[in-house]
């Protein structure tokens, strides 16, 4: 299985994300935002956290128009997997691969701590390695993680079991405590917390590793 991790100017955790994919058994390629194509045979694209393009205009808005974005869109349209984390989630909402938008935290403060998440859905490869309603501890680090969606959109997410992860204690005002959502089709997932930073016990825990292991397992079956 091949993973491609995109780097924009201002990305961070891109190397951590690449390492997390590697540890789950993926062959990982690094892709620059000016590249116009993904490596041949890419199975999953990772869009990392950070502050792409300085968060100018809106978080993720400029990155969503970069040359590599068109290749990511085409990959998703073919049914390829895409995982967006934190700023990567913002990029995927700006690309309209995921519904809703991420707004400034309700408390207006940058939220940086380890939080408890509940695995709300195990229906996708992203979370299949966890148990339903399992509690996991994963770091957050964001200023704009307040997931916003209209009432109809929220109902659709709920009805279609597309809310993958929720916060046990809402740190940012997010609608319905949402921490991570899934696309309707093809398989695209976005989450605000950083599973790639919870990938080694000596760095405070490895509860995030199941996400990458689950992706590996789910994609191998597909």
């Amino acid at each position, binding site marked *: 299985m091949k993973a491609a991790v995109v780097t924009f100017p201002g990305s961070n955790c891109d190397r951590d994300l690449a390492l997390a994919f590697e540890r789950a058994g993926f062959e990982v390629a690094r892709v620059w935002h000016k590249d116009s194509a993904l490596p041949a045979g890419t199975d999953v694209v990772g869009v990392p956290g950070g502050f792409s393009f300085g968060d100018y205009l809106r978080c993720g*808005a400029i990155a969503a128009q970069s040359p590599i974005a068109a290749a990511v869109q085409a990959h998703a349209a073919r049914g390829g997997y895409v995982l967006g984390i934190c700023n990567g989630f913002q990029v995927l909402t700006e690309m309209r691969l995921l519904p809703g938008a991420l707004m400034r935290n309700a408390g*207006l403060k940058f939220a940086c701590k380890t939080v408890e998440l509940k695995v709300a859905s195990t229906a996708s490869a992203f979370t299949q390695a966890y148990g339903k309603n399992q509690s996991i501890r994963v770091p957050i680090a964001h200023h704009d993680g*307040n997931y*916003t*969606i209209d009432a109809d959109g929220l109902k659709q997410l709920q009805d279609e079991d597309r809310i993958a992860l929720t916060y046990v204690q809402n740190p940012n005002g997010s609608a319905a405590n949402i921490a991570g959502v899934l696309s309707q089709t093809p398989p695209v997932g976005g989450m605000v917390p950083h599973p790639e930073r919870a990938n080694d016990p000596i760095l405070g825990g490895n509860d995030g590793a199941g996400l990458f292991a689950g992706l590996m397992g789910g994609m191998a079956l597909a």
Partner: protein
Amino acid sequence: MKARVTVMLKAGVLDVQGEAVRHALGTLGFAGVTGVRQGKVIELDLAETDASAAEDAVKTMCEKLLANTVIESYRVEIL
């Protein structure tokens, strides 16, 4: 030709920054400010000389980049 784009959060989307500004105004003694909505103004210099064509082009720019129509509305003025 110049264009001015005003981008605001849609009605019904909670503007947490606007609320913080409203609160600060109250703290400063400005009583009676019942609401604050914060947006952004983007000014464009355009080579286009036809106002109608310029407006169409800027609206397309708004849809594609300048506004996130999931949460924001926009207004275009050709100056």
